[in-house]
């Protein structure tokens, strides 16, 4: 799209778009191409020689039980984070929307964890869930009679990174659900109330269906968040351990590429991640078109 009335100038528009294009070319297109080509080569760790090997890296990757395990870990983790943070965000937003008083104060109290870096959220939860000092860990032990130890047990480590990653996302989801709730016309709710629908019935029959666009959108955003931005959580809290049980895909790219110096495999993993996010973006755009019809 473009304006009906436009300016005419020979070189100015090129000059204005140039910085953006230059940076995009240098730090996006060139590295992406580089990554794509690297994924077809097998090179020694010092980069002295490399050999064209077709899809060897990809075949290696998808027959590597560690990589397959990492895929399962990532999916489990992202579904867990999305479920926990969306449920809590929706719940708190619904309550805050019902409350008549102090909505501004409530918003202030709920909004700030958004500004906390994932890595810092990781540190806070590392303390809360520390096997010997953590108060939440001790409470879990008392209630369930288990021996909580995220340093030893993979399941506990997974719960720990899920909590650290979800906590921060609650406020993000809260903001969007709040906006979604306030966009619902009061007349709809009132009409249902006059017809005798109880508050719960109204929520499930009117509010919730009208929130589905927000809901889908947040699912996508939370999954992307747990795929990529949680790197900081993993790096500070578990480093992928114990025994690779929290080694999500993006952390594996880093480990194999930077620590293990397996360039071909790391590049192939990057390409897989890239394809994945292109797919998600595509789905997202399909859905955005639908959203317009919903809210109209």
């Amino acid at each position, binding site marked *: 799209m473009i*304006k009906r*009335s436009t*300016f*005419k*100038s020979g070189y*100015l*528009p*090129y000059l204005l*778009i140039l*910085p*953006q*294009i230059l*940076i*995009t070319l*240098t*730090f*996006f*297109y060139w*590295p*992406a191409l*580089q990554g794509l080509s*690297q994924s077809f080569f097998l090179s020694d760790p010092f980069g002295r020689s490399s050999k064209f090997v077709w899809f060897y890296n990809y075949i290696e990757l998808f027959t590597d039980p560690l990589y397959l395990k990492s895929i399962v870990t990532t999916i489990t983790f992202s579904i867990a984070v999305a479920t926990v943070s969306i449920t809590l965000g929706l719940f*708190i937003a619904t*309550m805050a929307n019902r*409350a008549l008083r102090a909505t501004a104060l409530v918003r202030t109290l*709920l*909004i*700030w964890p*958004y*500004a*906390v*870096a*994932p*890595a*810092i*959220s990781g*540190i*806070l939860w590392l*303390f809360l869930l520390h096997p010997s*000092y953590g108060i939440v860990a*001790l409470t879990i032990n008392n209630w369930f009679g288990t021996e909580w130890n995220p*340093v030893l047990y993979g399941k506990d480590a997974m719960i720990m990174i899920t909590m650290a990653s979800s906590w921060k996302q609650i*406020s993000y989801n809260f903001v*969007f659900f709040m906006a979604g709730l306030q966009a619902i016309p009061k007349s709809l709710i009132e009409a249902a109330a006059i017809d005798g629908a109880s508050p719960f019935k109204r929520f499930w029959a009117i509010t919730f269906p009208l929130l589905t666009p927000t809901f889908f959108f947040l699912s996508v955003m939370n999954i*992307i968040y747990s795929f*990529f931005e949680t*790197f*900081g959580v993993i*790096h*500070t809290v578990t480093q992928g351990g114990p025994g690779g049980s929290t080694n999500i895909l*993006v952390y594996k*790219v*880093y480990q194999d*590429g*930077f620590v293990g110096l397996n*360039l071909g495999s790391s*590049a192939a993993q990057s390409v897989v*991640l*890239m394809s994945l*996010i292109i797919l998600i973006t595509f789905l997202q755009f399909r859905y955005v078109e639908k959203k317009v019809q919903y809210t109209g």
Partner: protein
Amino acid sequence: MIEKTPILDIFTYIFLMVGILIVGFPIIYSLIAATLPLEDVSKVPMPLIPGDQFMVNMKEAWTRGNLGNQIFNSFIMATGITVGKITISMIGAFSIVYFDYRLRVLAFASVFCTLMLPVEVRILPTYEMAANLLGPLQGLWDVLHLNGLVSWFAGHDIEVSLNWSLLDSYTGLTLPLIASATCTFLFRQFFLTVPEELCEAAKMDGASPMTFFRKILFPLSKTNIAALIVIEFVYGYNQYLWPLLITTNPDMTTAVIGLQDLIPQADDLPEWNVALGAAMMVMLPPVLVVLSMQRWFVKGLIEKEK
């Protein structure tokens, strides 16, 4: 409220308070821990009454973590990313929306394709790029065997190596992260809603494109800019993977990454009071920005994701 539901209302407020407590608990608890002396913080369970060691712990954290330097680095990085992103995407969107030129669609499409492709999916090649910005040129140089040519000219062997590294520099921390399709889109969407008449009137009055941009478009975009400042500052300050890769010199590390060194490991003294005190100080700037600019923040967050 539509009908009177006193019981439900009470539960609403109770659940709301529980919700706020759950969200606030990690911070409250860590703040208390940051006020305690070492022997209290390692007690099981930790006492919930704040101690009097707050300043001592903070001072210790500040010097041990070299926080002054690191928070400064984070500030430079966050500010650089914010200013850079907003500037280049605003003029870029201006070019796409207000000018008709041959490569317009291509320019738009090439920016569009980078949407939602975070640095995380192409870390290694981007790192190599930053390690030597002239790498592609060097490749060209080698392919064309220009070394031989130069040597032939000079009459003796000359090894030309093109090298411009961004590692351990502020440019390296900021530049690769300021290409953003989302910001360009936000400005594009906004510019499209600006009435056509404004541009027509400006043209009739003989204003040049840049005068129109400066005198009309920029003032109109102020709230959008404010919203983006909050979002991008938080984004830049909280970056993790990129600064981790690009800085090896401890003096260039950002605060969020530096915190890692303060976490007590298995064999260390369990000085969680110091580690958490440092965490509190490091997270303070973005939290303050979000809280003080809350209105724009909410607007920016929602507009940006549309």
